């Protein structure tokens, strides 16, 4: 492995499938957490119900791709209602607790033996998305600068980034509208908003649904790109990485999730490749090759901590805004 290969790998992943998935998850979190201040710690659950809604519709029920997508979106809306209706009148931390628990319950249900015939147990659902690749306009592998994509990857990545652009435009429009003004006001002081005649509860529920549906597109991309839905992919790590992506890029910034996910995956793969390279060439001899995977997360974690200390607003955030006491 040579250094230019490490770099081109990092670039490929920086605009690749994982970056798209986490970008979509983070766009949803941005609406919920960034703009509204809702602590949704169960974003992985929204991606999971979307992925399984799609997979089960196609593989189990035998419906088309389009129906599968609608089922996935409906499942995300339903999940938002189930989580939001009982908790959003309560203090903010209740939503956090309930969402993190619900996401784990969903994952364990999807991987359970009982539902194996439907959800496929721990093997998940596989090879259900051939329909999607039938529409593939690319006739072979594609190179974009040093980045390299197979024919199928290029197709899903193209669709993924188109979705990112569309959803980002919607977020932009929402947040400069009077609706977005209410949302941002709720983040700062719910009682002030109530005193002006707006139902905080209703707006929070809307934000939870919108953010869940936007995030659920990440679940579709994950499912289709890998032609496989693995229950353990939708663990709490996914949620926390999506938060890392959002905070790195800058919360409450339309482009925050995009910048965050590109930088996050570029750096993660770069660190990984560089370490592996250095270890196998003997430049670093106190780490074994099989430890590189763990150590890159240490480095990433430390980098995120340093970022929070020296640039808490993220790459795109506004320090001036952050320094105002919101309460």
């Amino acid at each position, binding site marked *: 492995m040579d250094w230019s290969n490490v770099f081109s790998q990092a670039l490929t992943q920086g605009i690749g499938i994982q970056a798209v998935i986490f970008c979509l998850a983070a766009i949803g979190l941005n609406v919920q957490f960034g703009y509204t201040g809702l602590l949704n710690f169960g974003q992985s659950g929204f991606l999971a119900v979307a992925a399984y809604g799609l997979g089960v519709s196609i593989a189990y029920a035998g419906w088309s791709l389009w129906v599968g997508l609608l089922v996935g979106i409906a499942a995300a809306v339903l999940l938002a209602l189930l989580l939001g209706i009982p908790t959003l009148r309560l203090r903010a931390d209740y939503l956090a607790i309930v969402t993190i628990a619900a996401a784990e319950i969903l994952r364990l249900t999807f991987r359970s033996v009982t539902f194996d015939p439907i959800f496929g147990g721990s093997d998940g659902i596989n090879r259900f998305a051939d329909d999607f690749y039938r529409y593939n306009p690319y006739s072979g592998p594609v190179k974009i600068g040093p980045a390299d994509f197979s024919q199928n990857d290029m197709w899903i990545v193209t669709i993924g980034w188109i979705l990112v652009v569309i959803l980002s435009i919607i977020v932009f*429009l*929402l947040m400069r*509208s*009077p609706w977005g003004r*209410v949302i941002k*006001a709720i983040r700062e002081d719910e009682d*002030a908003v*109530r*005193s002006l*005649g707006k139902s905080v509860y209703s707006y929070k529920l809307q934000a939870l649904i919108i953010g869940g549906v936007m995030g659920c597109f990440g679940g579709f991309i994950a499912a289709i790109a890998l032609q496989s839905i693995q229950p353990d992919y939708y663990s709490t790590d996914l949620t926390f990485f999506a938060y890392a992506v959002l905070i790195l890029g800058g919360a409450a910034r339309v482009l925050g999730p995009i910048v965050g996910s590109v930088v996050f995956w570029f750096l993660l793969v770069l660190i990984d490749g560089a370490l592996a390279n250095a270890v196998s060439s003997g430049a670093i001899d106190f780490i074994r090759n099989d430890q590189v995977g763990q150590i890159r997360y240490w480095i990433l974690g430390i980098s995120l901590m340093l970022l929070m200390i020296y640039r808490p607003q993220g790459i795109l955030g506004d320090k001036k805004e952050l320094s105002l006491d919101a309460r």
Partner: protein
Amino acid sequence: MPDDHRPLVEALKDVPHEAGVAKPDPILVADDVMRHFGGLVAVDVDHVEIQRGTITALIGPNGAGKTTFFNLLTGFDRPNEGQWTFEGRQLAGVRPHKVAKYGMVRTFQLTKALSRLTVMENMRLGAQHQRGEKLFASIFPFLWRGQENEISERALRLLESFNLAQKQDDLAGSLSGGQRKLLEMARALMVRPDMIMLDEPMAGVNPALTQSLLDHIREVRAGGTTVLFVEHDMDMVRDISDWVIVMSQGKVIAEGPPHDVMSNEAVIDAYLGTHHDKPLTDSGEALTAHPEEV
């Protein structure tokens, strides 16, 4: 300046000066409202009425229960018992945003300016029935741009009369404490309330602005809005209020026009905690000698 409020204010002339007295045309009527925190009875109001179209002051020593009473009336806190009607409508148990929609809007003793929104955005937030606040309409600006412009014009006129027009594009968090008070009051007026309830509107406001603020409150009354305010500055209370209600230890202990109330022995006792033989009519110094720490 329209003066429809004149007859309503005049009508108070014949009202006896006693606690819990009935008013000729009440906009708000509260009965047996009680709130206790553990063993502490914060509010225990048997009966009180607010005359429509007037400026009514709610005064009383620190801890008398004025803020708690505001919280109860506006749905931000729930009473252990009691009911009240506003414009004839039962309001007990109604959620705070509904109370505001029905036309009873309050401000907060500890100001709630939304720091990370601009002054203008704070103002716009107060306007009701905004098409752009609907989720689906919000992403189509042509559906709400016209209304937004009207709202902005009205907001600007209000900001001008509160001396905040030059600040319209600043973040509200950059304002001084007094300016935030003014902004909060102006924002509440954006709702076009039938009754506005101000919790210590003058606290921290630059004394140079006092007179214009008083004028503005009179204008609010002239526009047909009933004003109920909590205040510790007795000069302001005397200057502006048509009627004064005094609370102490959760109860209404006296009512009447300002001069009468400030010479009332029970009121002086409540404020000073001891018997005091000198009436507080003209200077009001005895009452302002113990300003509330915020």
